[in-house]
């Protein structure tokens, strides 16, 4: 089982048990994390599932951004940072258990 934690803008946090194969965005949407809007459903067209990676057990997440994702990260509602990712592009796997991401307070 893969545990992932979303830290909200108000500091509160929610830890979810995520199913492998889903994207981090899908996990958030299915479990009602309201800040992850994901309007385009994961096709890299909206930049509304932005997260900041605070703790990454693999240490690889930030370096595995794709070109289109980088393009979209230039357009987020809250300015992206070095540890920004679009959660639709993070596939859940067991090695990610313990992942902590911060969600920004605006996506649109």
């Amino acid at each position, binding site marked *: 089982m893969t545990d992932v934690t979303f830290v909200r803008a108000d500091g509160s946090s929610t830890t979810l048990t995520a199913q492998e194969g889903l994207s981090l965005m899908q996990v958030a949407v299915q479990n009602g994390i309201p800040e992850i*809007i994901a*309007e385009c*459903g994961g*096709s890299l*067209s*909206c930049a509304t599932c932005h997260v900041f990676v605070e703790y990454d057990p693999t240490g690889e997440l930030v370096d595995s951004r794709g070109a*289109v994702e980088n393009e979209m990260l*230039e357009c*987020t509602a809250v300015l992206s940072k070095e540890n920004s990712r679009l959660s639709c592009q993070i596939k859940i796997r067991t090695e990610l258990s313990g992942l902590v991401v911060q969600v920004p307070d605006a996506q649109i």
Partner: protein
Amino acid sequence: MTISNNPPAISPPTCELDPFSDDAMNDPLLVESQMRDMAPVVYLSKYGCYAATHYSSVSEIMSNWETFSSAKGVGIYDITAPEHQRMRAQLLEMDPPEHTTFRSVHNKVINPKFIRELRERFYDASNELVSGLPKNKPFEAISAVAVAYPMSVFPDLIGVAEVGRENLLPAAALTFNGFGPNNEILARSLEAGQKAQQWLISQAQPGAIKNGLAVQTHEVGESLGLSPFDTTALVFGLLSAGLDTTMHGIGWAIYLLAKNPDQFKKLKENPELARPAFDEAVRLGSPVKWFGRHSTSSSVIDGFTIPEDARVLVFLGAANRDGRRWEDPLEFNIERQTSGHVGFGAGPHSCAGQMLARLEGESVLKSLASYADEIEIVTEPSFDISNSLRGLHSLEIVLR
């Protein structure tokens, strides 16, 4: 030895229904539900192609672009076959990595940040239009709102001159009818739209439009190494794909809000629901009925085999109204979690202008909710007849 729990894959059942018949045009939901009840993928014997109608099969096929290629056309026919040969639509009828550079131009020009900056301007425009609508008096809402609003903002944004704008809609209608079979609908659309399409092609050339996103599209395309022919195709795509679809989305939203007063009340109480309400209308109405793909290898989708070198139509609306994925799929619920609907497509070809469409939809619904207390239907709508779009042609309403 490998032990598999999955049953062996079988061939999709043959379906003799015709999703392009007159009956289907008049009642597309009936045919679509009959196909969906048969299997996730069926074989349409009349057209010699496969059709996917379940949410699971549709989204898998659209996301798996390697196996389900767009390069042989996204209509019903293989455009590389001698009898159906035509020039491919750049971007739409390309696969990555070739597709990626073309798409990158749109991503850079109509990016979410730029669209966010249009918010105030678009909302002012929708307020102006909506506040001029009659109250307590019947009027035809499709032309007065669903068509008029995008026409008041979109051509200006692209930079289209005032003269000739009447060509935009017949040209777009022809593009979408052209994906379908060679039928009466296409013949009529050719008659009405061929000249208009020529005009659109001339407008799409570098230098024809003097400002707006058309100019930026040419410039950014050139900077990424695309030829004038390529950037012309991108501008043509913007002009022909950016209007009808949004208009239909808005038309559906007005109709569904009028039909569901409780939902309009919810929207009035919380105008922030305007944006999700538009997405819910796009889900339930699904302005684009289907797109085509071509299989590059044999594969198994939801337990059914699709052979290599086959055409596959994915029915977006059928997927968006699939009860296996959506609770009470035919219910219009503006508080529904709609993320994942395929009304704007999915995968690398998902709609490049979807954030612009959302802004237009959100603006006009917000304006309506603040202007009117109630929307009443006077006459049930008539629908557009199109090979690949589904939307309202007319709808008489009264605003109170």
